[in-house]
C-alpha cells in the first residue's frame, strides 16, 4: 500500500469511527509491517497530510479530524468526532457531505454553543469565528494554529 492509500485509509477510518486507527491493527490491514507504516506516517506528516504527536508515530490530526479530544465535538447520525478548531468542525461536515451538530464553547466567556449544519446551511448563522494566526504562519506551530 502506498502513502496515498495509507492516507486515504486513515481518513476512511475517521469517517467510519470518528477516531484514529490503532497502528498495530492498521498496519496489518494495510499489508504493511509496523516499521513500514511508521515510515509512511513520517512521510505523510512531512507532507502536511497528517500531523503526528511530536516524537511519536501516533496520529494527532488528520485535518479536519482530531485524534485527541478538543473543544469542538462534531456529531452526525450515531457517530461523533473531535475537530481541531471551528473551521475544522465545519470541515468534517464538508468532508463527509453531511449535516452535523457542533458543540463548543464561546472562547470569550465559556458559554456553551451549539451550531448545526442543516441542509447545507449553518444554523444559527450570526456567529463569528476568530482566526488568530495569519495563513503564512499556520504551519509554524500547527498545534497552536
Amino acid at each position, binding site marked *: 500500500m502506498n502513502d496515498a492509500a495509507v492516507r486515504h485509509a486513515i481518513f476512511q477510518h475517521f469517517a467510519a469511527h470518528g477516531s484514529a486507527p490503532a497502528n498495530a491493527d492498521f498496519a496489518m490491514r494495510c499489508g504493511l509491517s509496523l516499521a513500514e507504516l511508521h515510515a509512511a506516517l513520517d512521510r505523510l506528516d512531512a507532507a502536511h497530510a497528517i500531523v503526528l504527536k511530536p516524537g511519536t508515530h501516533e496520529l494527532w490530526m488528520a485535518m479536519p479530524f482530531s485524534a485527541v479530544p478538543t473543544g469542538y465535538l462534531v456529531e452526525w447520525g450515531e457517530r461523533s468526532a473531535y475537530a481541531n478548531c471551528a473551521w475544522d468542525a465545519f470541515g468534517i*461536515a464538508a468532508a463527509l457531505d453531511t449535516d452535523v451538530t457542533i458543540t463548543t464553547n464561546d472562547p470569550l466567556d465559556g458559554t456553551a454553543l451549539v451550531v448545526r449544519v442543516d441542509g447545507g446551511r449553518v444554523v444559527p448563522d450570526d456567529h463569528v469565528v476568530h482566526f488568530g494566526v495569519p495563513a503564512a504562519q499556520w504551519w509554524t506551530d500547527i498545534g497552536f494554529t
Partner: protein
Amino acid sequence: MPITTTWALARAWYSDRLSPDWRRSTRDEISAVFTTLGLVGPAWSFG
C-alpha cells in the same frame, strides 16, 4: 470572519479530503480560494 464564510471556506478546503485522489493544494490554488471568499489582506497572504 462570519460563520457562513467559515462554512464556505471549509467546503472549499475539505470537500475532497476523503477522496483517494486528494492532493495538497498549491499556494496559488489556496490564494484563489481566499480571494473568491473575499479573504484578502496580509492575514491571508503567503507573501
